């Protein structure tokens, strides 16, 4: 392998081990003497626990221990936390109930953790769990987010009257109301953003280990951010001080947000390891993933858009009820607030915006970030409103968007965000061309001849990622800073180890990061190793989510590389007997300006370590630098996606026929990996729009608790995408990159629903637009066509 370049489509180096079964996941880890944990879960959505009889289970074959919430309380182990404080519009702090890792007195959703059985084998743990007798007093359940605040609804937590965690708002209500008062047209829509299950290929897992000799704990866990896990487990839950707790997140097989959070099971495994004196392992079964990993989305929204006679937007008003589930997960409060409402300006110049959000409890699994986290929900609101408004006022949807695009930068929206750069029309123009928008009429007629309905839909999205400036998020209630760290360790012969606080769980960091370092230092990629996911190796980091590993994680690497280069120049100056200011570094060589004298990067590294050519008192030996990088602003990837569908009105089957995506991610490090991220994002977005949906029945049972009922997207569901990019390099980070991990999932649902409603000729359909839903909606269309 040779020296890589920025912008080169280098193939992913980590895939060799992943596709040949050599990855090392948590389930591949076995500790000597390891016992197995099985969690007894609540079969009820809401119940008081009158009594738990453990006797028979404790004496079942192979059982090491059976533990409950009482044992956690006795050991003074704290509950799980929500790390983002939201204040209601009356200024009061959000009202949160306790969240014990094992139930204490009450269970609040099907799948809630009642007890853990630790046994020699998993089968024995399961057998024993069947012998636990729990006396439940079953209570009425609050399941529907639209009804949970109503008088008489079951109360999930006494601490949150009317199941209302917060009633938060953003924007200027008076100015927005005034804008609506002078509008010539108001579009009103009611939307449901359907509830999703993340469905990472690898289920969650944890192994807790305790060394009584050193009093050190180790937790192996499927985490997107092991350092945050350590911080929470230490400082809030109280497992052990940070210096006594090592958290390792080895290869992790997908997260999509669901592995950001600190969960009950990993807490229990690491705590129990000391309590029972054995390493304790737990691996979720798929059903447990459905029941008890955090779900995503689940909004009920009323939204209005005010326009003037010329089709210029005057104002936007939104009221959302956001289902937070039965407990507040780690970042759940931030998702429907600060990751949602600040994106409601979309790509448009909107003078007044007012958003109100009720965060509500229900007797369902906790809801937290899922790919895009808040931003897909906002984009769905904005882009449905744009399309519906264009149809209602009789404007071409592309032209309506063009009329309202933000055209000059920086642009301060009325909802916090200051867009730094972009060229929204460039993406739209390119997308219109690639999608052959002009040929749509012809294609529609061709479909009609076959008895099929064809439609096209737009989505011009913006996202705020590269999360996030620490002081800014701190002022909004975040409990942590969102910088990133990097350490560059140059070895004596010039190989390099990069320690990063970012965590890879499918994104290809080992390739992209090594590519960056290779290009920068002029050394072959295979001389660069990327080390992540171990709190004993990487000192501190904030992990991977919110499309932040490129914009923030790689910027930290650049900052550390700058320091390495500066130090190496000093070493080179001594060795080459030149002044430091005369040393140039290019293509992996340090040279003296205007001469042919020079040293390779490896030679300088060796000199830095042997320290023969300089005075160790004047210049420290060694070549190792670290950096913390705090972003100056969010980054604002944007783009236009165009979906085209063909519906069989006889069956409701909707075929996604064409998909065009034109994204502006700024500078691309590895276009191949970027394209892969876009593909995956669109797949998940199409999944949300047409297939996926977590459904609870009225009693709070999860109807879609397996793949027999939860419809995952399949390869055959997708057309060949037409993907292109435009580029306005991001001005706020040294690489000019914006992030691409979530864009596809953010952009695609409204594009698809806009296409389906275009085909149907009316707006009456919700996500997921399943065959049954589309068939039902198409009846109206067929009748309308017949009447015409």
């Amino acid at each position, binding site marked *: 392998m040779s020296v890589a370049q920025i912008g080169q489509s280098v193939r992913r180096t980590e895939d060799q081990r992943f596709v040949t079964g050599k990855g090392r996941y948590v389930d591949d880890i076995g500790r000597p003497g390891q016992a197995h944990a099985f969690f007894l879960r609540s079969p009820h959505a809401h119940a008081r626990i009158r009594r738990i009889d453990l006797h028979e289970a404790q004496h079942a074959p192979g059982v090491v221990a059976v533990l409950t919430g009482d044992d956690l309380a006795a050991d003074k182990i704290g509950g799980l936390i929500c790390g983002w404080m939201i204040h209601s519009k009356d200024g009061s702090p959000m009202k949160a109930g306790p969240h014990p890792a094992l139930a204490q007195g009450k269970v609040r959703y099907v799948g809630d953790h009642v007890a853990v059985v630790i046994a020699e084998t998993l*089968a024995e743990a*399961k*057998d024993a769990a069947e012998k636990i007798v729990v006396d439940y007093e079953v209570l009425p359940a609050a399941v529907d987010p639209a009804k949970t605040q109503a008088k008489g609804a079951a109360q999930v937590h006494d601490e949150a009257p009317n199941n209302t965690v917060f009633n938060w708002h953003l924007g200027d209500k008076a100015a927005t109301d005034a804008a609506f008062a002078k509008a010539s047209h108001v579009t009103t829509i009611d939307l449901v953003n359907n509830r999703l299950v993340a469905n990472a290929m690898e289920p969650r897992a944890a192994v807790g280990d305790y060394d009584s000799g050193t009093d050190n704990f180790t937790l192996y866990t499927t985490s997107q951010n092991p350092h945050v896990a350590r911080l929470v487990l230490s400082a809030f839950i109280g497992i052990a001080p940070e210096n006594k707790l090592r958290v390792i997140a080895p290869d992790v097989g997908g997260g999509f947000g669901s592995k950001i959070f600190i969960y009950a099971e990993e807490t229990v495994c690491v705590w129990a390891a000391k309590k029972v004196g054995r390493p304790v392992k737990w691996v979720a079964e798929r*059903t447990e993933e459905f029941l008890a990993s955090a779900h995503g989305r689940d909004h009920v929204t009323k939204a209005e858009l005010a326009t003037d006679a010329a089709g210029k937007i005057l104002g936007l008003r939104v009221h959302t009820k956001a289902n937070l589930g039965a407990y507040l997960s780690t970042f759940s409060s931030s998702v429907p607030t600060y990751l949602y409402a600040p994106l409601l300006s979309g790509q448009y110049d909107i003078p007044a915006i007012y958003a109100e959000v009720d965060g509500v409890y229900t007797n369902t699994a906790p809801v937290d970030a899922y790919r895009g986290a808040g931003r897909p929900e906002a984009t769905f609101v904005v882009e449905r409103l744009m399309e519906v408004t264009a149809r209602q006022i009789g404007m071409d949807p592309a032209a309506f968007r063009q009329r309202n695009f933000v055209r000059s930068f920086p642009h301060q929206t009325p909802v916090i965000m200051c867009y730094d750069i972009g060229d929204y029309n460039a993406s739209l123009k390119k997308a219109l061309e690639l999608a052959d928008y002009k040929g749509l009429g012809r294609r529609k007629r061709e479909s009609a001849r076959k008895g099929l309905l064809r439609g096209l839909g737009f989505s011009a999205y913006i996202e705020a990622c590269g999360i996030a400036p620490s002081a800014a998020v701190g002022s909004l209630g975040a409990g942590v800073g969102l910088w990133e760290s990097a350490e560059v360790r140059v070895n004596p012969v010039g190989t390099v180890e990069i320690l990063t606080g970012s965590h890879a769980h499918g994104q290809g960091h080992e390739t992209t990061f090594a590519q960056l370092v290779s290009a920068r230092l002029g050394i072959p990629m295979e001389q660069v190793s990327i080390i992540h996911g171990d709190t004993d190796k990487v000192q501190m980091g904030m992990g991977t989510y919110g499309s932040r590993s490129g914009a923030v994680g790689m910027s930290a690497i650049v900052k550390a590389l700058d320091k390495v280069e500066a130090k190496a120049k000093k070493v080179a100056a001594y060795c080459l007997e030149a002044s430091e200011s005369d040393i140039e570094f290019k293509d992996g060589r340090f040279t003296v300006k205007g001469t042919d004298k020079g040293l390779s990067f490896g030679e300088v590294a060796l000199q830095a370590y042997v320290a023969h050519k300089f005075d160790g008192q004047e210049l420290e030996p060694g070549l190792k630098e670290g950096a913390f990088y705090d972003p100056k602003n969010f980054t604002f990837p944007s783009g236009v996606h165009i979906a085209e569908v063909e519906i069989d009105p*006889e*069956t*409701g089957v909707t075929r996604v026929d064409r998909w065009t995506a034109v994204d502006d991610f700024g500078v691309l490090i590895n276009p191949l990996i970027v394209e892969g991220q876009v593909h995956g994002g669109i797949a998940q977005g199409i999944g949300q729009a047409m*297939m996926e949906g977590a*459904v609870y029945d009225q009693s709070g049972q999860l*109807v*879609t608790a397996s*793949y*027999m*009922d*939860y*419809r*995952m997207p399949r390869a055959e569901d997708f057309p060949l995408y037409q993907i292109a990019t435009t580029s306005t390099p991001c001005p706020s980070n040294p690489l000019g990159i914006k992030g691409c991990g979530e864009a596809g999932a953010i952009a695609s649902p409204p594009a698809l629903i806009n296409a389906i409603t275009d085909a149907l000729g009316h707006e009456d359909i919700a996500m997921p637009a*399943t*065959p*049954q839903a589309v*068939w*039902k909606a198409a009846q109206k269309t067929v009748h309308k066509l017949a009447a015409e």
Partner: protein
Amino acid sequence: MYAFDYHRPATVRQAAGLLAKKEDAKLLAGGQTLLPTMKQRLAAPPHLIDLSRVDDLKGIAVKGRSLVIGAMSTHYEVTTSAIVGEAIPGLAALAGLIGDPAVRHKGTIGGSVANNDPSADYPAALLAMGATVITNKRKIPADEYFQGLFTTALEDGEIITKVSFPIPGKFGYAKFRHPASRYALVGVAVAKRGSDIRVTVTGAGADGVFRWAAAEAALKARFAVKSLDGLEHGPEGINGDIHGSPEYRGHLIGVMAKRAVASALGK
């Protein structure tokens, strides 16, 4: 999964002997339903009798005017069999629509017919073609064999050895897949043998596979897609769940029936 004893007989006789001797024993004929159920601890047979090494249960052949398929023939074997493809191409196509490749390589026709899942594909084919289920004890006509959800005429100790299909003049099957599970949300089979025409429906019936008399009558007048124009099944007696209300499934029966006729006519 609970612990169980595993038995692997080499002959039908040995299998029948084990079945008689071992209390609550279950036959393992591919296991694509049984094993997931056991893994979820929803079934706990103390004995499993694996039929995969019983050679008598294998093989596909045309005998006289019938296609005879050994009970342990996998869906993959049926769908790729040149004999099936020649004799009843629609049946080969049906087998190729079952589950996914992993299921098709393990699941068998005997296992499917014995389980009689109301959303399985094979029951529609057997009932439409008037097939005979042959066991170690007797021959059971399809008309008598299917008796409702997961219920069949099989008695204790009885092992399906073969399924015999009288080769029809025309046969077609159209399946609307359940979006998640890929079982039949609605599957309709149409068979024509001389003047005998049958239309059968799987996936939709509240009581399992059934014949749709109105469609049969319509096709008797003329075996053509057009004969079914305007014919709707309606929601009565039809299943409903989040993926398909009785109205939707009832409607799909009409649509799939037309597509099955088209397929039978090679269109």
